[in-house]
């Protein structure tokens, strides 16, 4: 219980709301890496998902790969990427500090974010009634018109659902960056552990959970806004792919 009160006190302490280690800064950093990773993942996963979803080819392969990716913990990705990222700095000419923090964190989050978006985009398009596609084709829609005017709008709730899942697990897992000296809310958790300061640690946990839920809520809203009107809102369905399930945050060593 005293942990709770201590945590609360820590959170309310104005000291922690300013400066380079202040909560606003940390949230900003946390959001920065999350959004960049998400955006990059979307740039890759959406087109690929759309193509395999529209054509129906290579779907199972992509989905299975995405699912099995879960068996590799993000922390392993982080440390596997770290050395090359550092070593490439001289040749590629970026700041070593990028190779130390941003690049490994980004890579791990990027890889983490791809499967849900990919699988949901694919699945969403597949779920569109084939009769509709047939009717559209029969009326002389071109393939890309079918994709953009029919399949995409109808699949939008599912696709955004995928982005939502990605967002939640990226926000929850980006704490990992703190291990390689990245900022973000992970700092509070890592530092809290290192300094044996439970209030700091749990404040970090609470903030991360809060941010994750906020992302969840926001995207849920977007999802509702983007759901085409005139459709009965689909109830919750079974999980068909691991990618539909947010990954629990990776552990901190």
């Amino acid at each position, binding site marked *: 219980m005293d942990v709770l009160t201590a945590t609360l006190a820590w959170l309310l302490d104005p000291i922690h709301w300013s400066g380079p280690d202040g909560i606003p800064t940390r949230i900003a950093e946390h959001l920065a890496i999350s959004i960049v990773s998400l955006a990059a993942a979307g740039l890759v996963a959406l087109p690929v998902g759309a193509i395999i979803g529209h054509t129906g080819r290579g779907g199972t392969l992509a989905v299975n790969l995405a699912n099995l990716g879960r068996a590799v913990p993000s922390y392993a990705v982080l440390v596997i990427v*770290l050395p090359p990222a*550092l070593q490439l*700095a001289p040749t590629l000419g970026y700041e*070593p500090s990028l190779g*130390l923090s941003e690049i490994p964190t980004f890579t791990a989050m990027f890889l983490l974010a791809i499967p849900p978006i990919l699988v949901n985009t694919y699945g969403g398009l597949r779920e569109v009634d084939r009769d509709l596609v047939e009717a559209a084709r029969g009326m002389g829609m071109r393939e890309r018109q079918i994709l953009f005017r029919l399949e995409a709008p109808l699949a939008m709730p599912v696709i955004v659902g995928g982005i939502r899942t990605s967002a939640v697990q990226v926000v929850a897992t980006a704490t990992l960056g703190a291990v390689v000296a990245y900022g973000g809310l992970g*700092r509070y958790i890592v*530092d809290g552990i*290192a300094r044996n300061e439970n209030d700091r640690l749990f404040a970090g946990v609470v903030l991360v959970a809060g941010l994750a839920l906020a992302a969840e809520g926001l995207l849920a809203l977007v999802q509702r806004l983007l759901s085409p009107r005139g459709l009965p809102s689909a109830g919750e369905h079974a999980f068909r792919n691991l990618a539909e399930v947010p990954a629990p945050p990776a552990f901190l*060593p």
Partner: protein
Amino acid sequence: GTGGGSKPTIKIGSDGFYESQLVAEMYAQVLEKAGYTVERSLALGARKVTSPALEGGQIDLKPEYIGSGLGYYDASKPSGDADANAAALQEILSGKGGGITVLDYSPGEDTNAFVVRPDTAAKFSLTTMSDLAAVQDELTWGLPPECETNPLCAGALTDTYGIDFPPANLEALAACDAPIAEALQNGAVDVAELCSTQPAIAQFGFVVLEDDKQTQPAENLAPIVRNDFLAKLSSSDKTAFEKLLNDVSAKLTTEVLTELGVEVAVNQKDVADVARDFLTEQGLL
């Protein structure tokens, strides 16, 4: 070693990293030879796990670094004086988990070492930590997250060596860990806090800056054991038990720790084998 009567079962734990495991393994082997049944819980991930485990009686015995062990409970206490640290630690532990005893600590230690790459050393001609103050802003520092709150880190750097904390360029990286060594080797940081026995130092040929003003805590290794376990032993057994462990401690010089570290971490020998070979060679088995 002696037998004599049935010996109780002892649960031995260790911290996550290999050196702690190695020493714990040594304790285990000598005790087994003496007829104790040993349950190992090695490589417990973090103090967050080990400390509750020991206090809660999940383990009876573990090797402890008297400096950071003390710091975990009171960051202001640890000093460069081993006896002082041991005493302070004993004082605190007596009140924990129904009483915990700190046995003799090893001559050797694995203390915090501030190291730089050879090229940096050459460029700024660095040999001691006092040399750092002048060039502090030209360097990127790799310091552990707890440094800020740790008198032996931030405190020592500012008060003793006149280095501002936080430094102009700081990367927060856990000491002695993989990322910080990688970062140092690849120039993401120029000064890093490692552990003096860490094989990486040898591997990458890092230069250890002499702690010329003795600020770093004495980090000698001592067996710490729960009193309720000791209570199970007849007085004769108790003396024998403590002697066994103290004998091991006695053999652990800094050089030994470093060598054995290389065996485990570089040559990838198994902790158990390395421990056995060493103990046999020292005639403790």
